[in-house]
């Protein structure tokens, strides 16, 4: 009985901490601009990024290596994105306001992936420039 109570309380706290942690990651990424080059490369049009593009952007992120590995943060946001998807299926039908918030949150996840892609592309460009300069 006590173990079950501890489990329920801990799991509730886990969900709350996890959502807040992911939102802090998303909020930090919102302040960064995605470069025009990355936008063109990833086929992003307009100011924001649609939530539907998240999967494609994450696949592009995987193609670019980075020394200061951010794959843990990407994995956390991916999990958050999955939770949002489940919530959209269940809660999206109940309230229109909730559905639009979930959609905007999914868009933030996609923007986070676009920022990660931008950072990795910038790093790879720099690395390539250094290699070319080293050869010359």
């Amino acid at each position, binding site marked *: 009985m006590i*173990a*079950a109570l*501890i*489990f329920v*309380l*801990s*799991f509730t*706290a*886990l969900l*709350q*901490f*996890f959502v*807040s*942690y992911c*939102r*802090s*990651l998303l*909020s*930090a990424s919102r302040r960064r601009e995605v470069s025009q080059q990355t936008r063109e490369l990833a086929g992003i049009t307009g100011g924001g990024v649609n939530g539907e593009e998240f999967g494609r952007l994450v696949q592009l992120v995987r193609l670019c290596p980075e020394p*200061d590995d*951010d794959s*843990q*943060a990407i994995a*956390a946001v991916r999990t958050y994105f999955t939770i949002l998807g489940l919530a959209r299926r269940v809660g999206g039908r109940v309230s229109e306001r909730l559905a639009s*918030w979930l959609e*905007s*949150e999914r868009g933030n996840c996609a923007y986070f992936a676009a920022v990660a892609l931008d950072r990795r592309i910038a790093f790879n460009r720099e690395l390539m420039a250094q290699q070319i300069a080293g050869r010359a």
Partner: protein
Amino acid sequence: MVVCILRANSVRRYLSLVFYLLAEFLTTWGRLFVFLRAGYSSQEYLYFYFYSDALLVICLYFALMGMYSQVLEEMKVSRYLRVAAILLLGLTAWFTYGVVSGSRDRLLTHFVVELSQNLYFVAVVLTYLLWGAMMKLRETRTRLIQLVLSLGVCVSAFAATYALRNIYPGFSILRYMPPLLAIALPVAWGYTFLKVPEEARLATARLVAPSR
């Protein structure tokens, strides 16, 4: 992770975290050594794992107190915090002893296992209270916010896993969760130190209420 803190010139500020991470590093190597010598299913590994886990969770508890000191640094209450932390630790140990004192067989081992489980739950409650205090005080330091939240995720996952293991002892997949979680915390903290500058600011209210 320690290198990340060194790179960020934040050793003094995050001394309790450095202490915990060094303890974690030594424990991991110790576990690997015992694992290679005695094997995964040996009694030696089992004892070493649980005894070192109890020491680690005490270190984690002090890392959490270090975060409390940072959040409440303007109130100058760090002395009271230290006393309260030791009192709470003593109370948890006393409660745990009360629970396990009935078992005459391997009392110390039962005590150690039970103590680490109880301390993880106490850590969940304390992290939740800290997060509440941060919201109330409108804490804006992004780095501190992310450190506390990632700690919250890990300790609550630890506590939930241990509780689930008590409910379903035969659920073998749960045995692999604590080592994975033990890796996740330093990785999350490392990410925070590498990617979030000390001067970055964030409104805590944005993290809990839907953005408008």
